[in-house]
Every structure is written in structure tokens, then in C-alpha cells.
């Protein structure tokens, strides 16, 4: 276990970048004209949002690869990406609520992105629950990949529905002038969270593969019994 691993290096790099980017965002970047210091939440919120979407897009691609090839490694990275997506999506909602309170005066608003993210997190969390209920590893891989594929197609549908449903709601204004002092920490944190997300996915994928190996050595008793029933009726 003492071997050098590329994902550990990527993870540590991400952590270092996150500290630098957050320092710049918190103390070096100027306060925004209308929102003041509260706007500093953006430097961590927006990168989380981008990377959550990126990770779930990766999960969709891995799911297609998993269904297509049936190889355990694709299932493992798909699980990693799905779980990281759920964790980051939940974090995203929490950050969004903290930002909404001082700017909109409320914790929750049926805003398009907020609502879509919430539904998306619940959807993908359900897929993780499905995984935990299926004992046969091949079946678990295919079923969860199928669910991930449908779920990914569903997210834009939810988005457009919520947007039309809330058509009276004003579109959030974006700052007119964005100085480079604001862009730099945003960019650094985007890469930082990307690297951290890669570490999450890689680590979770290794865990999944290790569990699969363990299952092959000692299959769960329930599966054993059913196989026995099938071989001698």
C-alpha cells in the first residue's frame, strides 16, 4: 500500500490549489459592487457547480462504456463519478442556500438551477441506493448504468420544465465588469476542485474494485443460496 499513486498526487495538488485560490478569493479579490463580500462565496460555489456537472457527465460516459463493454473497471469509475456527483451536488445546494439567504433574503427559492440540482441529487442518490440493494455484481453494474443513462438524459428535461414553470422569475443578473482579480481565484479553484474530484472518483473506483474482488473470494450468502437452488431444483 506504500506505492506512489498518481491520484494521490493529483488530490494533493488540488488541495494546495484550493487553499491558494480560496485565499485569493477571500482576501485579495475586490468586493463586488452590489453584493459586497457575500459575493466571495462565488469563488467556491461556481467551481463546485461546474465540476459537479462535469463529474456527472463523466458518469454518463462511463455508464455507456460499462453497458457496452461489461468491464468492471467502467462500473467502478461510474460508481465513483456518481457518488462524487451526489456529494458535490449536495454541497452545491448547501452553498447556494448560504448565498441565497443574504442576497435574496430566503434560504430556498424555487429557482431553476436550485430546483434542478435538488432533483438531480435525489435522482442520483436513488441510483446509489439501488446499487446497495443488488447483490449480484454484474446485475448491479448493468442496472445502475442504465439508471445513470436515463437520469442524465432527464436532467435537462427537468431544467427546461422548471424554467417554463417559473417563467415569471427574473433571470439572475451577472456582474457587468469582471476584473482579473476575480477571474484568477475562480479559475484556480475550478482546477483545484476538478483535481479533488478526480481523486474522489479514483479512490471510490479503487474501493469498488476491491469490494468486487472481495465478493469473488467470498460471495454473500444470499446469492450462494439462490445459485444452489437454481443448480439443483
Amino acid at each position, binding site marked *: 500500500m506504500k506505492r506512489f499513486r498518481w491520484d494521490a498526487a493529483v488530490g494533493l495538488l488540488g488541495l494546495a490549489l484550493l487553499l491558494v485560490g480560496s485565499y485569493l478569493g477571500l482576501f485579495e479579490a475586490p468586493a463586488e459592487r452590489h453584493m*459586497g*463580500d*457575500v459575493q466571495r462565496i462565488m469563488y467556491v460555489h461556481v467551481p*463546485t457547480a461546474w465540476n459537479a456537472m462535469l463529474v456527472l457527465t463523466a458518469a454518463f460516459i462511463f455508464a455507456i462504456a460499462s453497458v457496452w463493454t461489461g468491464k468492471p473497471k467502467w462500473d467502478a469509475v461510474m460508481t465513483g463519478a456518481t457518488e462524487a456527483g451526489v456529494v458535490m451536488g449536495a*454541497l452545491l445546494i448547501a452553498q447556494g442556500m448560504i448565498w441565497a439567504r443574504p442576497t435574496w433574503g430566503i434560504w430556498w427559492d424555487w429557482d431553476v438551477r436550485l430546483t434542478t440540482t435538488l432533483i438531480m441529487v435525489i435522482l442520483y442518490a436513488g441510483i446509489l441506493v439501488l446499487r446497495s440493494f443488488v447483490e449480484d455484481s454484474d446485475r448491479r453494474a448493468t442496472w445502475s448504468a442504465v439508471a445513470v443513462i436515463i437520469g442524465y438524459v432527464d436532467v435537462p428535461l427537468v431544467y427546461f420544465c422548471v424554467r417554463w414553470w417559473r417563467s415569471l422569475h427574473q433571470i439572475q443578473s451577472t456582474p457587468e465588469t469582471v476584473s482579473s482579480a476575480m477571474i484568477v481565484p475562480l479559475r484556480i479553484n475550478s482546477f483545484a476542485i476538478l483535481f479533488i474530484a478526480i481523486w*474522489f472518483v479514483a479512490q471510490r473506483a479503487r*474501493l469498488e474494485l476491491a469490494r468486487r*474482488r*472481495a465478493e469473488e473470494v467470498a460471495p454473500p450468502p444470499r446469492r450462494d443460496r439462490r445459485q444452489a437452488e437454481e443448480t439443483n431444483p
Partner: protein
Amino acid sequence: MSEMAMPEGVIAGGWSYVLSAYGITAVVFIGYAWSLLRRRAAVSDGEEPK
């Protein structure tokens, strides 16, 4: 959560919100990383084949 009196003005203050947003990010990232490492250790200790 952190304080009872909340500044009404949008422009002034708000540092408690900023810090709680960064704080929750740190807590979630560290917590999830810890959970990954712990779960991994549990599997390897149990029945690591090699």
C-alpha cells in the same frame, strides 16, 4: 446559524455567510475523503486477496 442579528443591507457585512460557505465546503470535502479512506481500509483489512 452563527449569529442572531443579521445585517439587513445587502452590501455591508455577510462575512459569516462567506465563512460558513467555505467552512461547509471544507467539512464536506474532508468528510468525504475520510469516508473513502476508511471504507477502503475496511475492505483491505477484511479479505484483500493479494
